[in-house]
């Protein structure tokens, strides 16, 4: 077995176990003892924070992609109206790669998603625009009726 070099030395110490703590990390360095109490609650909160951050990022990326889809479709539609492409070419372009142009509204499978979306909208702020629920649903690719129902249900739970 390979020996790992370390300048940490084991020092004898006695510590009380704090109620609720699942485990403790105790380490000593140059005569100073450090203790970290870890309980399940902290681990769960950490896990939730990481999950929240990953989900927020994916919603933000989706919002940017939907903005691009909107622009792509506007440009395609403009080309049709200006007579640069025919109705047939317009339909072929859509059928060829509909994901470039269409915003897909999906089912919300987790009520926490509604909270994350509400949190993101709050951070974006209302200075640039007062969003309607349908605009928010288009922005984050979720079905509007589900978003409204979940926010209402969460609001009742908080009351």
């Amino acid at each position: 077995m390979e020996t790992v070099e370390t300048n940490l030395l084991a020092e004898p110490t006695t510590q009380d176990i704090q109620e609720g703590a699942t485990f403790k990390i105790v380490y000593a360095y140059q005569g100073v003892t450090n203790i970290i109490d870890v309980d399940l609650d902290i681990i769960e909160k950490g896990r939730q924070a990481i999950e929240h951050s990953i989900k927020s990022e994916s919603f933000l990326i989706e919002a940017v992609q939907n903005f691009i889809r909107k622009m792509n479709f506007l440009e395609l539609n403009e080309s049709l109206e200006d007579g640069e492409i025919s109705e047939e070419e317009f339909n072929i372009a859509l059928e060829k790669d509909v994901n470039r142009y269409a915003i897909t509204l999906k089912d919300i499978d987790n009520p926490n998603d509604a909270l994350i979306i509400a949190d993101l909208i709050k951070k974006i702020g209302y200075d640039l625009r007062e969003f309607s629920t349908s605009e928010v649903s288009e922005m984050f690719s979720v079905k509007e009726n589900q978003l409204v129902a979940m926010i209402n249900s969460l609001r009742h739970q908080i009351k």
Partner: protein
Amino acid sequence: MAKYIDIGDSVEGSKSSVYLRKVNKPILLNLEGVGRFYKYKSKIRAIIKITEELVPKVYKICETSNLNLNDELEGDIIEILLEEKVTFQLISNFSNVHGIQGNSINTFTYAKIIIPWRFVLERGLGKHNPEIEN
């Protein structure tokens, strides 16, 4: 047949007539499990009337939608989802009194009031509701 003017009221039908004064450029929406729709948003004023009911008479998009023949939405800003792309004929200074022909939409139509008339909004906010004011 009824006229709906409140925020969130919606109608669905297989054909409709649409009267508009101004409309935004459409965007393309794909509703998972439902289908692909062109979404328009009226500005200023719009009336949407169901001229043919859905067969079977079951909602496609919103379970609270009104599905009867001649059900009508009227409001300031209305969002309209159509299965096919259309070019609207815009009508200026139309009114219910004058029988101006609107756009006949021969495809599935879903419409919902986003912003109703001001008096409806004010009624909701209690500005002219004595029961709430007192």
